[in-house]
């Protein structure tokens, strides 16, 4: 920092770093760097989109069934909010270019407000899911380790279970059995025949209601009612119609949902931090027609955050 600080500014504008020839070159460099960085962001999400594609292809019923529990109303509201904040951001860049300081500060605050609103709604949605025990890992009611004491569930998964798939001790009722009775003709009751030899847990998952003792011991959410997502659309699988493997893997949808929206949420938070920083600088009058690069670059970032949500929303909430 000291290296540029002691460089005198006798022959160029104050915002021009000493290693650039002119403001235009500096602006173009910043823009190029930002676009290249945004390309890396898209590729990072690309891994998740790829995982989404693989697991949707492998478990079509799971995705159809589980996505019904997402709150499309709040998702839509959030999409509108984010689009609106993208608009105020773009307008803000224009205001900075024209040197309209007051307008710029207002628009940046509105954008910040949009980001805040988005995160609050995301929080509401996450809370809903938490209360329904539709969370990640063993906190998800569909996870095979759900309801087990925390220190046993993840690491010792597979301990205390039958050595052989398809062989169930008489005294350990399973979800499949309970549901097989409910709809005997519609489900695949032979997991062994599918060649999938995952050990099964013998626990209290019949009703998905956690015992009170376990509830008081840990922080896991409690399921008050049954686990079924109300299925209204014709042609959708009900829980009874899904194969036993699909029923056990319903948690995969939620994990992909949380990974994608969670990573996106982190980006929203980072974007809000950047916008806050820009807003403070705008208050001090740092930007004008001669220099608005940071506003422009943060704007690009915010549009990317918006763009990713535009892909996430239909993939997770809408497609059926």
């Amino acid at each position: 920092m000291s290296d540029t600080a002691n460089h005198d500014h006798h022959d160029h504008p104050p915002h021009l770093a000493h290693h650039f020839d002119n403001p235009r070159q500096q602006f173009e460099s910043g823009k190029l760097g930002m676009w290249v960085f945004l390309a890396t962001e898209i590729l990072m999400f690309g891994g998740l989109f790829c995982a989404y594609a693989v697991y949707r292809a492998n478990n079509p019923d799971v995705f159809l069934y589980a996505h019904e529990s997402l709150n499309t109303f709040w998702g839509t509201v959030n999409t509108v909010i984010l689009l609106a904040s993208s608009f105020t951001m773009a307008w803000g860049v224009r205001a900075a270019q024209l040197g309209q300081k007051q307008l710029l500060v207002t628009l940046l605050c509105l954008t910040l407000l949009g980001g805040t609103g988005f995160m609050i709604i995301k929080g509401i949605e996450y809370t809903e899911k938490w209360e329904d025990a539709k969370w990640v890992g063993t906190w998800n009611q569909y996870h095979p380790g759900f309801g087990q004491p925390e220190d046993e569930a993840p690491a010792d998964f597979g301990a205390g279970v039958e050595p052989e798939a398809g062989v169930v001790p008489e005294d350990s009722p399973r979800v499949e059995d309970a549901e097989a009775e409910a709809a005997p003709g519609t489900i695949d009751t032979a997991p062994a025949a599918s060649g999938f030899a995952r050990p099964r847990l013998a626990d209290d998952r019949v009703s998905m209601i956690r015992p009170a003792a376990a509830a008081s011991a840990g922080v896991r959410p409690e399921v008050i009612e049954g686990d079924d997502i109300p299925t209204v659309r014709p042609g959708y699988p009900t829980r009874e119609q899904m194969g036993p493997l699909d029923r056990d893997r319903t948690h995969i949808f939620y994990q992909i949902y949380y990974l994608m929206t969670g990573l996106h949420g982190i980006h929203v938070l980072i974007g809000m931090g950047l916008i806050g920083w820009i807003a403070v600088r705008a208050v001090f009058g740092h930007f004008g027609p001669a220099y608005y690069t940071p506003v422009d670059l943060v704007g690009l970032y915010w549009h990317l955050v918006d763009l990713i949500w535009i892909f996430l929303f239909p993939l997770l909430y809408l497609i059926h």
Partner: protein
Amino acid sequence: MSSIPNNVPTDVYGREVKRQPGDHYLNHGKGIKSWLLTLDHKRIGIMYMIVVLTAFLLGGIFALLLRTELISPGLTLGPVLGLNEDETFDFYNHMFTLHGAVMVFLFIIPAVPAILGNFVLPLMLGAKDVAFPRLNLLSWYFYMAGLVFFVWVLLSGVLSSAGLIPDSWGFGLDTGWTFYTPYSTDTNTAVTAAVMGAFILGFSSILTGVNFIASIHMLRAPGLTWFRLPLFLWALYATSIIQILATPVLAITLLLLIAERLLQVGIFDPALGGDPVLYQHFFWFYSHPAVYIMILPAFGIISEVIAAFSRKHIFGYKFIAFSSVAIALLGFIVWGHHMFVSGQSPVANAIFSLLTFSVAVPSAIKVFNWVTTMYKGAIRLDTPMLYAIGFLGMFLIGGLTGLFLGSLGTDVHLHDTYFVVAHFHFVMVGSMMFAFLAGMYFWWPKIFGKMYCEWAGRLGAVVVFIGFIATFYIQFVAGSQGMPRRYATYPDMFWTHHFVSTLGAYLLGLGLFWVLGTWIHSLVKGKAAPANPWGHNSLEWHTVSPPPHENFAVTPRGSDPYHFDDWHYDKDLDTYVLDLKEEKPAPASDAPHTPTTTG
């Protein structure tokens, strides 16, 4: 001119440079703070040099421990350290994992771009700095943060055996550097910390790539057109493309692995409906292009060194430049050859095999061009050139054995044997490390303004070469006879192979310490370097050594970097000096260093 004593620095015209305190980058600021907060790409390059070479030393120590364990069949090093059989095997697993992880993530990937690239790139462009100096410093701090995580992984073994941290936090690392699932999600070692470290190092890599691309696009000196860029810059450009396109995929893969370990999300764990082969696809989608992050900058260095020490214009400039970009792009579509035996479909195997062969074409173009450049050249066998010639041999062997592994039938036989180990050590150590050392010696006078001892440098090159061949060549034989990789013990029939290999490793280690010795000797006792000891024409040689804080007194004009006719050798000064085409500038009297422009 020739009356100047031999140990004063000279400028491009061979005139004495009177240096004042504070007029070059090494003494421009004083104190530790002026280094840790510097925005000067040259200082950041030096800081990278210190930490990356430290990581190299660390990885090298692990390598020697591995080879020592393998010097004889059965348990060798373990009992000496007081370990029983199981503990010895654990120890071996930890050592080879850390050797691989440290060497790959902390040394091979960053070495050339971060050390030499950072130092040389703006100088070659005729620029004052990289496009984003603050980002550049930030990427160094990201590197340090990643290093801290790896050191934690190392320490955790010691701390947990001393009872200072609970075992459940994980200790050591035994997954192999690839962190393959499902083992990496189950093992009770510090996988999360190591993966976090690799994730952060990835950020460092991405930021460097962004910086280089913006710099090459925006900061070229007047007259420095794209096809006048030195080939090292083309190589760094191609490398940066890979860094920014592949590294984010590794980042998300590693995040998913962490999520898998901490939250049991079931992306990779088959017991939870995940797919462990998906991890391999993700991992190699990054890590195969990463192989070219390691080798492409090496190609760039070799292009510079071979042209400079053959005194001939590089042959087929555009072919070399475009082959770098071609390798970068082809590198993205060959990852499946790491997975021939993972159960992917035969059609995919065949396609990946075919695509893998296609990488041989641009690689061969480069080799032919280098050899043709040397043909009828006035070759000087200085230290950088010795390493470059060593590189040609290594890369030829490493590249051609790659074809055995890219072919489906032979790969099934050779998969996970020492043949693979030998192959990638030839490419990554033989080629990349030799090019790195060539580059270090080549730019050493420019970086530190001191010459190194030539005979000592040459001796080091020969010892390293012999040590390397002894270590790894015989591993091809062992591998083709069926010696599997990653084993701590082996049948007696492989004793000779391993014994020779281990002795070679000791010799290689000795040679590398000798190399370090020549560098330290140069810093302490080396004579002052002239502006251009090799007569190379790219722009970094048009300023004094070491360069001033702002690189050039006057912005230089770019010209053909491989046009050597304007430089002639001055016997008295033992350096190349620039012929004065126009009128002779007045001798330097008051100016600390004179403008160094050229047409």
